[in-house]
């Protein structure tokens, strides 16, 4: 009987999925942590704009510019989250490939992967 970490024809699919799941799990946790922290920062900044505007510590024109700038910051955070998710997916695919590389290359007799 094959050991747990041995890749066989029967467990090839499961091994690929296991490797991808392990890689994705930890990375998506850090993406989620980043997104949450940045959303909180955005909320604090928006509160600062509202309070400073109400107290006349910033003018209406300044408030408009700062809100527009904050929209830009929100968009940048979402772009970074998208990019981090892509990086996580890429790492998961490559981790899966790495797991089955020796098995596949051994079976076909040349460096296919």
């Amino acid at each position, binding site marked *: 009987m094959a050991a747990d970490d041995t890749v066989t024809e029967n467990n090839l699919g499961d091994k690929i999925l296991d490797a991808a799941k392990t890689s994705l799990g930890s990375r998506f946790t*850090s993406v989620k942590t980043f997104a949450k922290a940045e959303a909180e920062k955005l909320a604090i900044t928006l509160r600062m704009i509202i309070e400073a505007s109400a107290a006349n*510590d910033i003018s209406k024109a300044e408030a408009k510019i700062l809100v*527009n700038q904050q929209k830009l910051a929100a968009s940048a955070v979402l772009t970074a989250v998208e990019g981090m998710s892509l990086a996580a997916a890429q*790492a998961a695919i490559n981790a899966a490939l790495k797991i089955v590389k020796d098995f596949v290359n051994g079976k076909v007799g040349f460096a296919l992967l």
Partner: protein
Amino acid sequence: MITKLLIPKHSRYFKYLLLPVAAVALVGCSTMTIISDYDPDTDKQLTGLQQSVDVFISSMTSEIPKWDKQKRSAKNAYSAKKQFYNDFDEKLRLLEFRVQSIPKNSKTQKLVSDIRASVLFDENDERRCEEENGGNGMILKEGEETKLNSLQALHCLDKNKNEGPRRMALEIAQRNINQVVGAALALEVAKKQGTESNK
């Protein structure tokens, strides 16, 4: 668990159909690239830009006493600080050139363009800054919609142009800009971790 979420019950063997497709797609390569690898130069230049804009805003803030939120400082006049924007533009152009030359780098390219938009204004706004209101700074009329979103535009509003912005405006702009540059840096760090884990 992921399998259960992604694959409907009635097609549980679907994953086995995908395997040959994936194998064919990946023939001849042991890794797959859907986003550019970590680039140390991009990281270094982003860090440099973050530091320079943060120091710039802090230096203006330090000219205003903490206890007087209405206070401005003539030392922060736009004319006295214009060189920063020119220098920042120059450094940013180098980074833009670099990130555009790297394949599959659209996310970082977009983030770098966000940095430009959050700090610098475009040619039209520059002209407005120089000419509007007799050269004394831009005026946004009551109820006027604006697309202005940069520190440079904030700095070129009337009052701010000759005496610099007040503390709160500077502090909020600093938070926004740090968040934009921070997002770009976070993506580079994520790429770095991905690159290292697949070695």
